[in-house]
């Protein structure tokens, strides 16, 4: 059941001129959130923006086993993300969640490949922890524009996640899109069961879903659409999904998603 927490900012870490990780004291949401779920955020006391904005739960914060809160990975693109970038400890952020359908987890011997593009890394910290907790081997295939925009690599390494990188400028990992290392991983995994998880820009999700299908692999993609409420009230965040031969219909990505099978979405 979603709750609305007036969450105190515990800390705010700037990772780059555009990216930050903000820690929020919202233990109830953090405790009940499943990997892939999201929260709707509004910076308290600000008249604008009027509407909340969706963010994946990035990390669940624990001290001595007790859940203290959660973090959000944010990239500055608009008003809310600018407010989150500039927030300081003690500020208050309204945080509604957890919302949406989470990722479906897989068990060994099935292996997991998580494909992240840019700020699409956000749902994969909690997903990696959940999968590793079941003994499922996890590979993170992570792409960004440049090496300086690849974050939390040590975090994933230290937990036993295999990490494969790509950058558009070639400064780290493969030069080019994230599909370059992904294709190599899919070829190498021939004969083993694999689930592909993806989050990032929609063209990337489309490419990943098609690549997975071509290799006979299932995929789960987490989409981000312009969202008004997060609860199914406004019908703004719809995405077309297949509905019989040649047909499609719009479903609300806030309640039918944000995680979908890569094969059910009708890509543009």
């Amino acid at each position: 059941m979603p709750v609305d927490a007036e969450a105190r900012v515990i800390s705010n870490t700037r990772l780059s001129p555009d990216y930050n990780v903000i820690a929020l004291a919202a233990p109830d949401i953090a405790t009940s959130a499943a990997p892939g779920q999201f929260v709707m955020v509004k910076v308290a006391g600000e008249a604008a923006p009027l509407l909340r904005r969706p963010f994946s739960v990035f990390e669940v914060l624990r001290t001595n086993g007790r859940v203290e809160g959660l973090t959000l990975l944010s990239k500055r693109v608009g008003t809310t993300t600018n407010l989150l970038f500039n927030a300081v400890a003690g500020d208050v952020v309204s945080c509604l969640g957890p919302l949406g359908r989470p990722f479906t987890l897989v068990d060994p011997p099935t292996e997991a490949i998580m494909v992240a593009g840019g700020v699409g890394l956000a749902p994969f910290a909690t997903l990696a922890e959940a999968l590793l907790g079941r003994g499922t081997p996890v590979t993170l295939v992570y792409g960004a524009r440049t090496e300086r925009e690849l974050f939390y690599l040590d975090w994933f390494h230290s937990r036993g996640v295999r990490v494969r990188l790509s950058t558009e400028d070639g400064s780290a990992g493969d030069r080019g899109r994230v599909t370059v290392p992904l294709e190599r991983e899919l070829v190498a995994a021939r004969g083993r069961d694999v689930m592909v998880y993806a989050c990032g820009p929609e063209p990337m999700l489309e490419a990943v879903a098609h690549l997975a299908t071509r290799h006979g692999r299932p995929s789960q993609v987490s989409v981000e659409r312009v969202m008004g409420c997060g609860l199914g009230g406004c019908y703004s965040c719809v995405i077309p999904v297949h509905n019989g031969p040649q047909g499609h219909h719009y479903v609300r990505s806030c309640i039918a998603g944000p995680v979908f099978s890569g094969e059910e979405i009708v890509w543009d």
Partner: protein
Amino acid sequence: MGLTAPPDLSVRIGSLTLANPLIAASGCFGYGVEYAEVADLSTLGGVAVKGLFLAERQGHPPQRIVETPSGMINAIGLQGIGVHRFIAEKLPELRALHATVIVNICGTTLDEYVELARILSDAEGVAALELNISCPNIKEGGITFGCSLHGTFDVVSAVRKVTRLPVIPKLTPNVTDVASFAKASEDAGADAVSLVNTFLAMAIDVETRRPKLSNVMGGLSGPAIRPIAVRMVYECHRAVKIPVIGMGGIASARDVLEFLIAGATAVQVGTANFADPFIWAKLLDGVTSYLQRHGVARVADLTGSVNTSAPQKHG
């Protein structure tokens, strides 16, 4: 000081008594059931469900909303499951939740409104019909009735003939004199009017020179439209004897009170519910404490109580 009785929050809309004047606005609350986890629907005065046609509708392609200063523009295009699936899939759940269900209906022809009214009059658990003759976002129907006095009169009287449910036409603000549409509705036998639907609006991305919405234009809602909506409610209340249900940018108890004092018997809340789905209890608490503080026994006594005999003194 003795204990004072709690104020009477109930209001009457035709033959229907609402527990309080707060109604979830159509198009902003799904089919109601989506909100069952965060709001006790039985504590709302009413739930106006998303506009229904006879058939299912796809709605417009995304992008469907854009935020604007103190508001938002939407062009959803009335995506919906159609009346038959609504009755089969949603109404039983709404009944179980003890919601007072106001069904918003929309047609492309007069016959479609009549058919919808017939079907819903036979369904168990429908408290009232709101006639959507004001959606700015679809090409045919709806607003073509709502922008013509004859069209408004004809559709209201046609529906009136086939149902005993309270009939509430929802009026568009995109006309010169909204009060004349309230009067036409009253003359045609409406039990109440609700207003305002959204203001036809547009937003453009100057970098790409493209409209921000796929439908090019959409309807503006939110606090940006509130003072205009208050004025229109005031005008309509003076023009008709039937109740006026006011809406437009209500986001606090003070906003609810402003509409009631302007002339509304009940109000609808839409956009603000998107930002705060827990708003209902806060609004009700605020209205209740205002009534107690001002010694008003019945919320209905506030309706139209604005004192225009002398302007407010400043300083």
